[in-house]
């Protein structure tokens, strides 16, 4: 009887056809709470990443996903559970610097490699954690915004409104410094709290100061509020620019014509991958659309790529024997030098992406037309133009 059971087990094991032992991959992201929308997109990308890796490398991946509820404490708990109890080989995910900060500290305590995509605060990598890696970070976004304002708009006065959260505060400060350095005046530099519903009093300051460009460093809800109130005030500016989460397909769907002409930064939009990565981009989009019946956002793409890079690093570190270790994974990540849909990806000694640059797009007829940097642009700007009329 025992022999039969052994034969069955061996048969089952051989039947799976996996080339190496199972990789345990941990992921945490907000599935509920204020950041749930972004976290859900991220997890969808992660799932595609896992499936593609399994197909390509014939290595089974045991994906463990925890909802961090958009709460820093829950994010720490998720990482502790993944690293301490589930004993995963590595962790991906995390959205928002205020969540990823404490979560990455927990990953460091457990000595588990942690590759994130949704946290851009420069302070996160200042601690030089050996397990911390990320695909995007803030300076890449700030220079895309200030570069467009300076080179494409030629504006003289810019009003900056920003959400008080750490990442948006940091990008606002860096952009302001870059603008001032370029000789552009920033007469309005105003912080607002999360949950603000009446933006008119701060928008009036922008109007009174005669700003040509309104730059809002915030999130989806902040853009909806400021655009609606700017329309009511018929705010006389020449351009409206946002940071993250603006101009996405959902954004265009919800705001309709009020999303027209707005500028936003992104990491990736369909068609912006470098030539060598066009096929990979198209493949991901096709799989994602077939699986989820929707267009992938750049957050989904980030989720996918972080998973792909992490799993490849684990597998590469483990070699044919599948002897995975944290140290080998870290070494493989540090040695990585690839060109993917985001461009060239390598990590510096702090885990920051060395060559990361954001792209800047304008919504034109519902589509995101990349206009900056010039070498990645797929269209030209319509300026001056804001959805409510403006100047």
């Amino acid at each position: 009887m025992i022999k039969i059971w052994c034969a069955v087990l061996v048969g089952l094991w051989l039947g799976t056809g996996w080339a190496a032992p199972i990789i345990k991959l941990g992921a945490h992201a907000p599935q509920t709470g204020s950041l749930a929308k972004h976290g859900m997109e991220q997890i969808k990308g992660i799932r595609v990443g896992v499936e593609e890796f399994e197909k390509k490398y014939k290595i089974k991946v045991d994906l463990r996903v925890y909802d961090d509820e958009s709460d820093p404490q829950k994010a720490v708990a998720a990482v502790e559970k993944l690293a301490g109890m589930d004993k995963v080989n590595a962790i991906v995910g995390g959205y928002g610097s205020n969540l990823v900060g404490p979560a990455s500290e927990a990953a460091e305590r457990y000595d588990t490699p942690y590759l994130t995509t949704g946290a851009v605060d420069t302070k996160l990598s200042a601690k030089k954690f050996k397990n911390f890696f990320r695909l995007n970070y803030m300076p890449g976004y700030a220079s895309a915004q200030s570069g467009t304002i300076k080179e494409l708009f030629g504006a003289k006065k810019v009003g900056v409104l920003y959400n008080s959260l750490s990442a948006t505060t940091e990008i606002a400060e860096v952009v302001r410094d870059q603008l001032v350095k370029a000789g552009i005046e920033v007469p309005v530099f105003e912080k607002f709290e999360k949950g603000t519903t009446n933006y008119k009093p701060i928008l009036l300051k922008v109007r009174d100061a005669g700003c040509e460009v309104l730059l809002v460093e915030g999130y989806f809800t902040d853009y909806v509020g400021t655009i609606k109130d700017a329309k009511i005030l018929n705010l006389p500016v020449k351009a409206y620019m946002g940071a993250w989460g603006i101009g996405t397909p959902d954004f265009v769907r919800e705001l309709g014509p009020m999303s027209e002409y707005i500028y936003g930064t992104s990491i990736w939009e369909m068609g912006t991958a470098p030539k060598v990565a066009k096929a990979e981009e198209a493949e991901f989009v096709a799989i994602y659309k077939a699986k989820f019946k929707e267009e992938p956002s750049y957050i989904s793409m980030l989720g996918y790529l972080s998973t792909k890079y992490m799993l490849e690093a684990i597998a590469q570190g483990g070699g044919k024997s599948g002897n995975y270790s944290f140290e080998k994974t870290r070494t493989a990540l540090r040695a990585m030098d690839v060109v993917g849909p985001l461009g060239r990806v390598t990590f510096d000694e702090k885990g920051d992406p060395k060559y990361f640059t954001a792209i800047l797009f304008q919504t034109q007829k519902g589509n995101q037309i990349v206009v900056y940097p010039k070498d990645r642009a797929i269209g030209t700007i319509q300026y001056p133009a804001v959805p409510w009329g403006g100047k």
Partner: protein
Amino acid sequence: MENSLKEKNKVHRRKELISTASIIQSILSGMLEGGNYALYCLGLAFVFGIMRIINMAHGEFLVLGGYIAYWLLVKWGLNPLLSLPMAAVIAAGASFLSYRVFLQRIRTTAELNTLILTFGIGIFLSNLYLQLWSADIRNISVDWMEKPLMFAGIYISLGEIITFAISFIGVLALHSFLRHTKMGKAIRITAIDRDAATLVGINVEWVDLLAFSIGGLLAGLGGPLLGMLSFVSPGTGLHITVKAFILTVLAGVGSIPGLIAAGMILGIGEAMTVTFVSSSYRELFGFALFLVILLVRPSGLFGKRI
């Protein structure tokens, strides 16, 4: 010395930046926002005044109304103003069920129990919305309501005027209902003395159920308007509940008409804080006012028995 000079220059620059038209515009926007606050808080204030239940699920009932209006607009193109009755009735139904299934069982126990239970109902509902309608932010966009009207350099949208009017009518209608109808009087008597109400033949259980459902109805009425002026999402409810609670305390328990005045004080105060100080002190103003009122006048600005 140098620092103080810098500060002075900053203040001077700030004063220079603000025009009289902007101050008037800011006051007006605060006033209209205050009217919205009053409508958002009406159901919570009513339930708290009558039943002494702090309904922590109030915001979720309001958000439900917003979703109803959103889907009626998206699926059948129904104007959100026309969907107001349906949104209100469905939210009232959800409120009715919540009371019948959960709250009725613990109604006579400590007040804290109802607070915890309604908080739980709120969490359940927000997660239910998340499953049903995803985490996407829903904005009820009606072009003609968003178009600005201009009077002497001051801008206002038709949607804001309509919302303010609905808020005003809602408060007056509730006030009249409580004062001038038999049912309203029965509710007031029950709120004042349950034993006496029972003695005169009022079914207090039924009154409780009715009052809680009316609270849901009023919340449902605010949902479509919130969606039009701002947005709805599964997580919006708690923020609304907190704001509504501040306003209820500010107005004073039992003062329904006081909600409009208190809403305006809060709305204008917040707008002025943003205009003259900074937007980052806006929430602080609301909470500071809340604490001051609790200390100086615990019964609220217009507090009296219903």
